[in-house]
């Protein structure tokens, strides 16, 4: 049943993506409403899929990348819907919904609830949830960064097209970028700590310098520097946008690397 809802969700997110990309070109009020409608139905279906999956999950099954990615996709859409209702920022959908779709497609490519090789603790769920929430924060910072650079480029080159008129103000995007990192960074920090704890439980060591752990730490240090740079020496605006895009590329690489290595649980 969860699988069926999962497929329906993916189809709906795909339709919403197409619709939101069309919105970038024509930017009519009708398109934004249709897109939001499809997204909302998709989100409902997604929630059901996740809920059914949760119910079906037992103590012995550990969350795999499938669940993690599906969950982060769900959070992305949730954040988008909240922001959309608060700020009426339709164009955000054109960036976030495709990202959520990509996340979901990756999830679909991976097996559900990978078999557990190591003793599983409830902390792993906490670890995955926190890490993924942190990742969603960075994903939104990434989206804000991309939108910032586009708007910055349009303003600099004085090309006043549909996109220009739909994209929000630069300082809003910069603020969104900052807020996403400020929110995402502590979540990732907690995610890493709980990960280390569960690794200690499962493998007996907090840190064994495997590639995922190394990358996760590199990512953490990177975002730490970005955040400090912003708060102390004014790494904002364009520089912040570039840095968060680079940072998110690092996050994606970590995830892809881990997935390709065929690891089951996140560690």
């Amino acid at each position, binding site marked *: 049943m969860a699988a069926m809802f999962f497929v329906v969700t993916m189809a709906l997110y795909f339709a919403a993506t197409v619709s939101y990309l069309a919105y970038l070109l024509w930017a009519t009020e009708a398109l934004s409403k249709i897109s939001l409608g499809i997204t909302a139905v998709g989100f409902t279906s997604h929630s059901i899929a996740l809920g059914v999956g949760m119910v079906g999950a037992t103590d012995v099954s550990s969350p795999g990348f499938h669940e993690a990615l599906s969950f982060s996709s769900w959070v992305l859409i949730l954040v988008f819907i909240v922001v959309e209702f608060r700020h009426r920022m339709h164009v955000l959908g054109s960036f976030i919904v495709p990202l959520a779709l990509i996340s979901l497609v990756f999830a679909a490519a991976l097996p559900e609830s990978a078999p557990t090789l190591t003793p599983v603790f409830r902390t792993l769920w906490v670890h995955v949830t926190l890490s993924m929430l942190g990742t969603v924060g960075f994903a939104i910072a990434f989206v804000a960064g991309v939108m910032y650079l586009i*708007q910055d480029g349009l*303003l*600099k080159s*004085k090309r*006043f097209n549909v996109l*220009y008129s739909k*994209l*929000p*103000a*630069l*300082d*809003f995007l910069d*603020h969104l970028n900052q807020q996403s990192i400020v929110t995402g960074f502590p979540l990732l920090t907690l995610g890493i700590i709980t990960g280390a704890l569960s690794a200690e439980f499962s493998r007996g060591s907090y840190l064994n310098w495997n590639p995922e752990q190394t990358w996760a730490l590199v990512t953490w240090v990177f975002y730490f520097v970005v955040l400090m740079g912003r708060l102390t*020496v*004014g*790494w*904002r*605006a*364009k*520089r912040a946008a570039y840095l968060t895009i680079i940072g998110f590329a690092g996050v994606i690489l970590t995830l892809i690397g881990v997935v390709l290595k065929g690891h089951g649980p996140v560690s």
Partner: protein
Amino acid sequence: MHIVVVGLSHKTAPVEIREKLAIPESRMGEALTRLCSYQGVREGILLSTCNRVEVYAVVDEIESGYGRIQDFLADAHLSLSSEQLTPHLYWHEGDRAISHLFRVASSLDSMIVGESQILGQIKEAFEVALTHKATGIILNKVVKKAISVAKRVRTETKIAEMAVSVSYAAVELAKKIFSDLSEKTVLLVGAGEMAKLAARHFIANGVRHVRVTTRNPQQALELANRFGGTAIAFEEFREDMASADIVLVSTGAAHYLVSEDDVQRSVKQRMNRPMFLIDISVPRNIDPAVRHVDNAFLFDIDDLKTRVERNRGERLNEAEKAERVVVDEVGVVRHWLQSLEVTPTIVALRARVDDIKQAELDKTLGRLANLSAPERELVEAMASSIVNKLIHNTMVTLKAEVNTSEGTAFIEAARRFFSLGDPAVSDVNGNETSASEPCHSSQEDIRDSEEVTPRSGSKAPDR
């Protein structure tokens, strides 16, 4: 008697020529007196703004009139010869001259179509001309008409919104950089009209912090008071620029006041918070190289206009509507001017009295039904004789005075005395303006005509 205009504007002459030709307010009176002293120039008015210098005049002959006015323009400025001037001048007469004035007043000919400043400038020029008795019956009416046409254009079309739209465009752009303007600071450098308008727009859109600087500290203080902001010293504004989120520059300086380094430094001091710079000066006051500075967004007047161009379709529509209003009104004035010619006035006068005579005859003869044919003829002859004697003197006076400077005043008077359907009385600015003309010269016309009448109309039985 012809209305002519000779002048140059931002469309035909560069600013170097325009500024040389511009007549300062203090010398306006002297210039008007000199203009009217030229032979064959009956009436004159001078319009001198930063975008145009124009002489409107009523002259006896078109060609010689053009020459006189050109001499006048060149004379005032020893640094410019008539030959240097010629390529930049335009000459219009009659309907085209009137239409030109209407278009200028309606701001259709302005650098920023729809701006309202020009109307005020025309009113001022008119006041000065009235004070110096430089205008007469024709220019008084035409200029007043121009003012009313401009008002009509403003109310009937959306053209005024377009000028506002340049400052509107500035605000709109700012909103793409800053989501909340209320916490932002605007720095106004210089006191150019457009920049002031833009500053006002920013304030209307929530900006609460305004800083003003001009070369003249007194003016900066006045502006700061008006905008509820603070004045800062002109010498220090570059150092102070970092505190401003929006910098509006509009000064008369012929060189760059703000360099790339200035902006680079400010952005650094601002910890890379974006800066929005608007250069409304011509020539530009902010180095265009500022475009290369990250997090600084520079827009000049052309960029803003391009932004405005997006509503081009509507804009053209409105301008077309305005042009139609102008054409309409030129027709009204033409009609009035024609009525000021002597022949149609005499014909109209003749027709008017004949109508009265015929009506009275019909009434009387209707009651005297038993009159014989010769008796009827006698009564008719008497009626004709009375009206002919009554209008004879008017006719002779009109014909005699037509070529003197008061000719139009006589014709106008005759038309009013005999109610000869003067369209101008009812259509131009309403009745009260023609009835109580503030213009001194028209009163003079009346006084003159009283003095003149006995000379030319010695046969007048009443005098």
